[in-house]
């Protein structure tokens, strides 16, 4: 087990979003957390990445309590791409990606050949080498997202947590980002945990799905095990048909109507 949440209680101030949750992430898998808005999936991901301190329970990284490991050491093992990250105005792609080397640098070792190599490799892998000197604000949404993933890659961790890496992207760019994630997983054997909204893409690109509702894990398993018509009703309050994705063979959700609204869709 690479990463584990044991009885974690998570929240902001007085309000608990997650009250006692257990989850294990196995090495070399792509796990995707799904669930309705406000179910606590991003909160859980932030806790797994030690961006949010649990109010109870613990998060274990390779069996050790993550808050007992120096944060810099964690940063060499675990990379986190937060939701909608912000960068200083005018920053170039190369500068952003170079920032990923932070945990490997010290005041006397600020730009080693390792750093240079890792940044070049990360830019190559995301196809951004040609855009390296461009300011981040001039890029398209998809390119910018790839630049941020590049930064996480330059960090050189074999564990990656991605919080909604496809938000604000059109479908083609969503697929592009997820293909990159698959590539990272297959070529380099990285362990990936991400939060996604699109269930069909989640089913296609994940080994394991974790479905959450109201701060609890309702179901966890392969996409086939988790994405059932019953579960969609329970977790998303959605009447839906689940058929086989003709391309990937994974479950494909065809929504019919939300359960809370009695109106019938047009035939």
């Amino acid at each position, binding site marked *: 087990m690479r990463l584990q949440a044991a009885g974690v209680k998570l929240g902001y101030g007085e309000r608990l979003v997650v009250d006692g949750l257990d989850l294990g992430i196995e090495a070399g898998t792509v796990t995707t957390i799904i669930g309705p808005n406000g179910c606590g999936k991003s909160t859980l991901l932030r806790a797994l990445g030690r961006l949010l301190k649990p109010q109870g329970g613990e998060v274990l990284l390779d069996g050790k309590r993550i808050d007992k490991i120096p944060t810099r050491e964690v*940063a060499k093992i675990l990379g*986190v791409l937060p939701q909608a990250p912000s960068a200083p105005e005018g920053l170039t792609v190369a500068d952003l990606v170079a920032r990923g080397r932070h*945990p490997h640098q010290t*005041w*006397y070792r600020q*730009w080693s050949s390792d750093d240079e190599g890792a940044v070049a490799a990360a830019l190559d892998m995301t196809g951004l080498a040609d855009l390296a000197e461009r300011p981040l604000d001039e890029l398209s949404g998809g390119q910018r997202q790839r630049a941020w993933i590049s930064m996480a890659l330059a960090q050189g961790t074999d564990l990656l947590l991605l919080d909604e890496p496809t938000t604000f992207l059109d479908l083609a760019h969503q697929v592009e980002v997820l293909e990159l994630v698959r590539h990272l997983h297959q070529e380099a054997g990285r362990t990936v945990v991400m939060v996604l909204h699109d269930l069909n893409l989640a089913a296609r690109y994940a080994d394991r799905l974790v479905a959450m509702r109201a701060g609890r894990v309702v179901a966890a398993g392969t996409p086939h095990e988790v994405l059932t018509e019953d579960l969609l009703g329970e977790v998303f309050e959605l009447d839906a048909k689940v058929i086989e994705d003709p391309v990937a063979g994974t479950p494909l959700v065809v929504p019919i109507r939300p359960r809370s609204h009695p109106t019938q869709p047009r035939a």
Partner: protein
Amino acid sequence: MTALSLRVGAVSWRVRLRGVAVSLLGLVLIVLLMAMNMRIGEIRMTLPEVISGTFDVNSAAHFVIMELRLPRALTGALVGAALALSGAIIQSIARNPLASPEILGVTTGASVTVVAGVVASGSAYGGASGLLATAGIPALALLGGLVGAAVVYGLAWRRGLDGYRLVLVGIGVAAVFTNIKFWLLTVGDVNDTGRAMVWISGSLNGRGWEHVLPTALALAVLVPLTLLGTRSLDALRFGDDTVTALGVRTNVSRALMILAAVLLAAVATASAGPIAFVALASPQIALRLTRSAQPPLLCSAVVGAVLTTAADLIARTAFSPLELPVGIVTAVLGAPYLIHLIWRSRK
């Protein structure tokens, strides 16, 4: 951007050539402006006289230069550098080009204690002026600056420090301090408040080695410490989650860098009073000159020294023989610049 990679064994640095060029050019300018400044005084000198007077121990001008003019010019350059460095740190942490030590309560806090001290010593002032001016006022300013910063920091802290919240709280506290200062000025004796007014506009008049040494000492300690924190500061420009993900102890790093900024601004203010706008403008000018995304620390300090020395030169020559406090000139030059910045950030 052209950057040079320097690698020797385990040591590796990346040097931005533009930053080096700007800094070197700035250093030359500082020396030149200081020399121009040292011409001015009761006996006017020419530039060659200043140079020979500085290096020739036996010349008639040597004493005047070494005891009066050089310390004043040095105080200007050092104070400017300290203010600018402080501003660069605060702007990086607040992620806001409008942030400056005024926002941290340092300069306004110092103004309150200094005015209070001058007004309270009231009738005894005539006798105590020498001591009060040399040791008492800088000490009061340092105390006020640190207390002011502590108030802002304490009010802005809410389970961590948010840059935006810091700026808003800082503006509020600065307004309160400023009004306390005005109130004190209205209740004080006219002669005392007149003296206090010169101090609170920021002046280099009569600054000697006793002002150079503490500022130089503070810079000698704080500049290396600040430079060690450069990488954390670069990281702190990002959102908090990104910073933490990169392995930076976000709140600790931020608190240490703010402490350094507060100390730099407090020491500078103690030496020369609150010289306006240097801390605000220098980092932004340095940023544009070096074409970097964040205020470069060393370059900002160099620019700050150039600005302050240049402003002092203007203050002493524009209405010669009348000499203005340097803070008046920086304020007059800085105000349009501030409007320009606000205008830009609106777009």
